Each structure stands twice: as structure tokens, then as C-alpha cells.
């Protein structure tokens, strides 16, 4: 098979002429609803061990989408995204003594990660793309090392006993109630992200991704847009991290590690970075494959690497890209 290089032309897909009216666009409402209904249907039809896998999967769906904001929307390459997820998770874990509403933890986690992202973005986004990718990797590693150095973060033991708590007075500790809580939160945040994706701001990010020089020439504040995108992605990742801490009740350095940053990339790429729903779908599919195929396999890194290599070299547009190509072919045949 001929190798397809995902140049900009491959990634971009023009759906709508920018500037056309979009007040009637209901996609931010019905798409997340469909997502929630479909994954919930799978959830309730699954045995308990798969339910557990899926309840992590929806959180990863949000996390992967936040990486899509960087790679897919704005052409910023981050290889240390786990750092923000971990920051969120540790924030919720450290505040476990507080008697707050479950949602408040998530908001605080998101804000903490977003603040860290602003700082890194302001310093780092002056660099070239490749140098910035290296910097994100370094930042990720610093955060990972800090969990071993800072007293109170407990190193490899992690922090346990993070409560799921209550939401507006309703107890969400049970596995079904927690599922409903997390799927609703994830879908709503995904809806907000979808709205941002379709907005003029999202459109400007795409312009910056496709050609920063032209974007600057038509008056877009390129640097500020990149910083904003990095902050948004960091904040959402932090929120997902908070949810992850509540889900598992325990936070360990694994969620900040180098390998986990790679796994987030693999999940997003598997679904396809060029489309909004690619990373989310990729995350769910990856979680299921991972549980069914690799649960007992040793040498996980070897397989992860080979999968990623295959995806990058053979179908860089991911599952959704392959699906779109198959649909195109089917339609062509029907026209004939």
C-alpha cells in the first residue's frame, strides 16, 4: 500500500465557508447527546469488568479531545499532555478532605491545570514547533519527578481515598450513579468544546494551524491564539484528571508518566485528529481493545509502538478517516 503522508492538505477538511450564519447549528447539542446515549447503551449492556473499563474510557474521551484541540485544531504538538491530566488528578486528590460538591473539585482541577498551561504557553510558545514539542516532554517529566520529590505527593504509593462525594446533594458514589454523573459531565464539556470548535475562535485556530504567516497577515493574533488553545487544552485535561481521581479513588504517578502522554496521542490518532469526534471515539475504542487484547500481554510498549507506527504510516487519518473514505467509495458506486 502506498504510504500516505498527512500533510496539511490531508488533515484539513473544509466543511463550511467561514462566515456563513451558524445560529441554527445544533451540532453542539445533539452530537454529545448521541455520544452519551451510545456509550451508555454499551455500558449497560456490558459485564461489570467492561463497565469499569468504559467508565475510564469516557474520561479518556474528554482527555483525548483536549489533545485534539492542540494537534488537530491548532497545530501545536504536545508530548507531555499527561502532565495537565496528572495535575488535575493530584489537585482533586490533595483536596480530598474538603466537603465540596463533586463538581467544584472538577472546576478547581481544571483551573489549576489551566494556570499551569498559561505559564508554560507564555514561556514556551515563542519556540519553534519542534522545540516546543521537546519542551512539553521535559515539562511532563518534571511534573513526574516532582511527585517523588515533593513531600505529601507520596511518590509511587500515590494518594488514595479520594471520595466521589455528592452532586447537588445527590450521592454519586454507586457505580451506576457515578457513570451517569461522569457521562453527563463529559458530554456537556464536549458540547461546549464542539461549540468552541465551530466558533470564529475555532476557525482562527485552524487558520493558525494551516498557515501561521498568512493568519498573521490577515490580522489574527497568532501567539495569543496559540496560548489560548494551549490553556483551553490544559484546563480540559485537568478537569478530566479530577474526574479520573474521583472515578478510581487513587492517584499515582503513572497518570503523569511519559508513556501515558504517548497513550493519549495514540488514542487521539487512532480515532483521527482531523475531525472533532475522532479523539473521543479513538479513546473509547482504544480502551476496549486494550482491555480485550492487551490486558494480560507483557511488553505492552512494544505493541503500543507498533500500533502507533502502523497508524501513522498506513492510515494517518485514523478510524474516522478510513470510515469517511469507505463511505465515499460506497456513494460513488451507487451513483454509477
Amino acid at each position: 500500500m502506498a504510504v500516505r503522508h498527512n500533510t496539511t492538505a490531508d488533515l484539513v477538511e473544509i466543511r463550511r465557508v467561514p462566515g456563513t450564519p451558524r445560529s441554527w447549528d445544533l451540532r453542539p447539542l445533539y452530537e454529545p447527546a448521541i455520544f452519551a446515549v451510545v456509550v451508555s447503551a454499551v455500558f449497560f449492556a456490558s459485564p461489570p469488568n467492561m463497565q469499569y473499563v468504559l467508565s475510564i474510557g469516557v474520561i479518556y474521551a474528554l482527555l483525548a479531545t483536549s489533545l485534539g484541540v492542540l494537534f488537530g485544531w491548532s497545530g501545536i504538538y504536545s508530548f507531555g499532555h499527561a502532565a495537565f491530566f496528572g495535575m488535575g488528578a493530584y489537585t482533586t486528590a490533595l483536596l480530598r478532605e474538603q466537603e465540596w460538591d463533586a463538581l467544584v473539585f472538577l472546576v478547581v482541577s481544571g483551573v489549576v491545570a489551566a494556570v499551569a498551561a498559561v505559564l508554560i504557553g507564555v514561556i514556551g510558545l515563542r519556540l519553534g514547533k519542534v522545540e516546543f514539542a521537546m519542551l512539553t516532554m521535559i515539562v511532563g517529566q518534571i511534573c513526574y519527578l516532582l511527585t517523588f520529590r515533593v513531600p505529601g505527593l507520596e511518590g509511587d504509593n500515590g494518594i488514595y481515598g479520594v471520595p466521589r462525594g455528592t452532586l447537588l446533594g445527590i450521592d454519586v458514589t454507586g457505580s451506576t450513579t457515578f457513570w451517569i454523573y461522569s457521562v453527563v459531565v463529559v458530554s456537556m464539556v464536549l458540547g461546549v468544546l464542539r461549540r468552541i470548535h465551530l466558533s470564529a475562535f475555532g476557525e482562527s485556530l485552524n487558520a493558525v494551524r494551516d498557515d501561521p504567516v498568512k493568519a498573521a497577515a490577515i490580522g489574527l493574533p497568532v501567539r495569543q491564539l496559540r496560548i489560548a488553545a494551549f490553556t483551553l487544552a490544559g484546563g480540559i485535561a485537568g478537569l478530566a484528571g479530577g474526574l479520573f481521581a474521583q472515578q478510581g479513588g487513587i492517584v499515582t504517578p503513572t497518570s503523569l508518566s511519559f508513556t501515558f502522554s504517548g497513550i493519549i496521542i495514540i488514542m487521539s490518532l487512532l480515532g483521527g485528529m482531523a475531525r472533532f469526534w475522532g479523539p473521543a471515539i479513538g479513546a473509547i475504542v482504544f480502551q476496549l481493545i486494550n482491555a480485550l487484547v492487551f490486558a494480560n500481554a507483557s511488553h505492552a510498549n512494544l505493541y503500543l509502538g507498533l500500533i502507533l507506527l502502523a497508524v501513522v504510516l498506513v492510515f494517518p487519518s485514523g478510524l474516522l478517516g478510513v470510515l469517511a473514505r469507505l463511505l465515499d467509495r460506497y456513494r460513488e458506486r451507487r451513483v454509477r
Partner: protein
Amino acid sequence: MADVLSTIISGIAFGVPLFLVASGLTLIYGVIGVLNFAHGSMFVVGALIASNVIGPAAPSLLVYVAAVIAGALVVGVLGVVLERTVVRRLYRGDHITMLLATFALMLAIEGGAEMIWGNSPRSTAAPAELGGSISLLGATISVYDLMLVVVGAIIAAGLFLLISKSRFGRAVRAVAQDPTMGEAIGINTRQVMLLVFGLGSALAGLAGAMIAPNVSVSPSLGHAFILQSFAIVIIGGLGSITGSLVAAMLVGIAEAAVVTYFPALTGFTFYILVAVILLVRPRGLLGSARLGRA
């Protein structure tokens, strides 16, 4: 005074393997335009091979030299194979494809190394001739460190001569500047790129093999090391060998000084230096010096 001298020597010795890894990384980036995330894994493979050849007992000097050469050669060959099978497909792709593909290679090589050598860390002894320490101007200096400094100096000099004086070096610089033009005047661009990738990988393998007696070697050793060499490359400027030499020495000495005077900061020197350099000079210490101009 004695304190300062031993700090400087051990700092430079610490910087030499970093320089070898970072110069390979920056050479490959400068000529081919591929940032090789898998470079740290190459380094680990070199270390694992050397410790395999040496075995658990203290080796004779001859076995040690053979182990180091074996590490460099095998990793160089691995680099050539990877170039022909995977990396070559990336030349016409964009940054993201390259980063992701070499990231995948990194995971795969690390996983492969785990499969072959297992996960447990192994320690390797230095040959008796290179053990112990000598006294120099009142300072105690480990012989192994001194050997690293000497070997590092020889390789740095050799690399500069190779790039700036030899026929091959001229071809390398030409390809770094403009591959299409190089092709047009009759340079075999593909061959140059293949050899550069092999050479860069061999440098990483050499570094790994030489550091084996100093650290406990395990497949995950590469993580820490690749990030440190990324730090070196960012500080020195991507694509500049001189930059990575200066940065490696600077970071090595800073780390050694921190170990002596502020032990609490051990392991963070790289990151602090990177942050400072980025704030002051976002394009690296030596500006955006590229190989073509080096």
C-alpha cells in the same frame, strides 16, 4: 581549589555522554530534518549490549574496549536498518508525522529491549585499569571520569574534522543546506542521509556503552537520558553541534556543582537551565546556528 577542579572534571565527564547523544540528535535533525525521539532508546540499546558483552564480572581492558565498540557498531547498524525501513518514508512528510513515527519507534524499541533483556536493572563493572582514582593538583579524580573526558575530546575533535574538512563532511553540509541542490550537483543525498543517521545512532550507542559501568542499566534508562539530551539540544540550539558541545559541558559542570553545593536540586539542573535559557534566548545559546553554517 582542589574542590573546584574535581567538580569541573566530574562535570565534564558527566557531560560527555550527553554531548555524544545530543550531537547525534542534532546532526540527524540538522541534515535530515527528523527529530528522532527514538534516539534515547538507541542509547539504551548500546548500554544493554555493552553490559551483555562485559557480563557480571569486572572485565579486562580488552573486553571492555570490545564491548564499547560492539555497542556503537550494533546500534549504528540498527540505525541504518531503521533509516531504510521507517525513517526514509518520513522525509517528505511534515513535522507531526516524523514526531509521531519516531515516538512510536521509541516505544517499540524500548518494548523490544524489555523483551530481550528483561526489566530488571543490571550493574556493570569497569575494568580494573580504569577503576580507582588518582590525585591531580591535590584533587581526587576518578580514572573513569578522566577516560571519559579524554575520549569525549577525541570524538568531538574527530567529529569537527569530519564535518568541516572531509569530502563526506562537505556533502553533509551541502545536504543540510539544500538537499535538492545537493542532488543536482551530483551528491548522493539518500546515501548521505543514511550514513548520517547511522553515524548519529552509533554515537548514541557509544555513549550508552561508555556510561554502562557508571549507572544501573535498564530499558527505561532512555527516558531520563533523552529528556536531558533534549534539554542540551534546546539550550545549544537545534542543529548546531558546537552548541550541543557547549551546552553539554555547561550542564554537566552545573550538575556537578549542584551535587556538591546544593544537593537538594540534584536532577533538576537541566530543567532550570532550559527555563532560564528559553526566557533569555529563545533560539538557544548560539542562536539558530544550523549545520550548514557551523
